[in-house]
């Protein structure tokens, strides 16, 4: 049961992170392109847009990773607590 749980969680993490960065970078680039198109500021809009988009992607991935680490640490703590309790019971 726990093995399939780990598999599910791992797949979840992998799928979540992958698209997060790509999409943010592309979106930033797209917005920059739009700015270029309407204001005639070629090529600066897309340059700044890709940088900002990349930063936004990093931010999203960082936040998601942070939330996951907290979750894993919490689960570990719970496990340790319950296992130490078991030992107490045996003693």
């Amino acid at each position: 049961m726990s093995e399939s749980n780990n598999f599910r969680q791992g797949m979840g993490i992998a799928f979540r992170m992958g698209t997060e960065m790509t999409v943010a970078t592309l979106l930033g680039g797209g917005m920059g392109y739009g700015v270029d198109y309407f204001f005639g500021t070629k090529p600066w809009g897309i340059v700044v847009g890709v940088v900002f988009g990349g930063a936004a992607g990093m931010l999203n991935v960082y936040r998601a990773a942070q939330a996951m680490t907290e979750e894993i640490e919490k689960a570990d703590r719970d496990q340790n607590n319950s296992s130490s309790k078991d030992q107490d019971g045996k003693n």
Partner: protein
Amino acid sequence: MENPLHHFELHPLVHLSLMGFDISINEGVVAMWVALAVVFGLFMLVVKNGVRLIPGKLQSVLEMALEFVRDMVEEFIGKEEAPKYFPFIVTLFFFILACNLIGMIPGSYTITSQLVVTGTFAGFIFVMTLFIGFSKHGLKFLSILVPPGVPKVMIPVMIPIEFISMLARPISLAVRLFANMTAGHTILFVLFSLSMSASLMVGWMPFGFTVIINGLELAIAFIQAYIFTILTCVYIGDVIHLH
């Protein structure tokens, strides 16, 4: 060989139009109806037989699934607010799961492999989070664009970054589900046509892979439904508890 993306094309079965809009019924619409009917039927079966204190097989499976989603909602949205959003999120979960699983039946149509469908879901969720945020916090909701503890000098840089990261969320939500389903089914198609076009001596190899990938796709059908709903919970939770 046939175009590997051919089976994603939609062909109208019944031509309909309303005020100049094409609302023809195609395979995708039918697949959606079937998904709705399956989910509704499964739950109605339990309700019709009477919800018992000691659950039968079907009832306990459905109860487990409901509790699984409820725990998720409570974890990310909070215990007090959870009952308000639970019905929406659980519906979303079962509908996407049913659509994904129906797509696994050979010859049927995977409606979640259409960007329009996943995009509509994600767009609706995005507008909903904005609505919840503004109705809960008023104009203070805009402070979501400024993360706490940012030096004043960085604020003009952080606002566009946060803005892009906000906008990227629904897009990545939509693209992830769409891309995973499309890619998986394309791989299945390519592998299967390889095994069909080769002789039996070589053909068993891609066929074996088709079987294995089919199992993986089944897992992905669950995982993607799970990720879509968990991220919906995260996004709603984020606008409810600002930072």
